[in-house]
């Protein structure tokens, strides 16, 4: 009867995601100034990392899959970095 039960890692990831959700909502109401945005995106990144590593099974995958998964993020970084550079350095 054990074959249908979810692996413990999945359950753990699910509960951790819900806990992080509660945490990020609670922290959003603390007056941290610019820190609020940083906190929200940091927790969001951790949540996304959990989904990618455990739900999407990246932790079991080899280098090639990791490169493919990372390439999109790397190019997203280029877009955001050079794209916002103009707006951040306007005089």
């Amino acid at each position: 009867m054990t074959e249908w039960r979810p692996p413990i890692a999945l359950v753990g990831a699910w509960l951790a995601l819900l806990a992080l959700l509660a945490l990020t909502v609670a922290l959003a109401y603390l007056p941290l100034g610019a820190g609020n945005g940083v906190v929200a995106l940091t927790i969001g990144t951790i949540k996304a990392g959990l989904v990618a590593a455990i739900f999407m099974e990246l932790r079991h995958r080899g280098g090639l899959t990791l490169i493919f998964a990372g390439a999109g993020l790397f190019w997203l970084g280029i877009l955001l970095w050079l794209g916002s550079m103009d707006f951040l350095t306007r005089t």
Partner: protein
Amino acid sequence: MPESSAVAPQYASIPHRDHTAELGMWVFIATEVLLFGGLILAYLVYRHAFPQGFAAGSRHTEIVIGTANTAVLLTSSFLVAWAVEIFSPATSKIVTWLLVGAACLGLVFIALKALEYSGEYDEHLVPGINFQFAGPKANGVQLFFIFYFIATAIHALHMLIGIGLLITLAIICRRASTKRHHTALHSAALYWHFVDVVWIFLFALIYLPGRSTS
């Protein structure tokens, strides 16, 4: 080679085909990252230009619905991951129910989203249709809501496609589940989790800013 008749001629074996399919899915996800990336750049640029307006706009979104929807989507993703993990012909019944459950949670998400849209329509917050907002923050709030509607609408479109995929797979699993469908399920699951990840970031960008000030 009796095995080769089961796979298309360009593949050497079943594992070869399956790994290739997974790689293709990851390339597709990279594409999707950049699709939403363009929107995120627009968001960041305008949030930088109108910090007050974006905070005010964010306070007008329904954080209760947003948080509930995040929980719904995370749970749905969990069910799909569970289904992928235990998939085998022996468990096809449970897998079917897990997929139906995940698809239903997806529909709950869409229903809540529709509720939220109608609320924003009543508050005259839909740019291009009935947007009205008094005061000096109007421009920033309007830009915020343009981003909000475009991003959530594209995300909802992805959700609808994903729900269709999950229901199709549930039907296939119910009828005749073979090892071959594990690849299809795995690919659909990757897509569903990716849609989940997009929402995690949209949630942080849309609902959370400006909550600690007024």
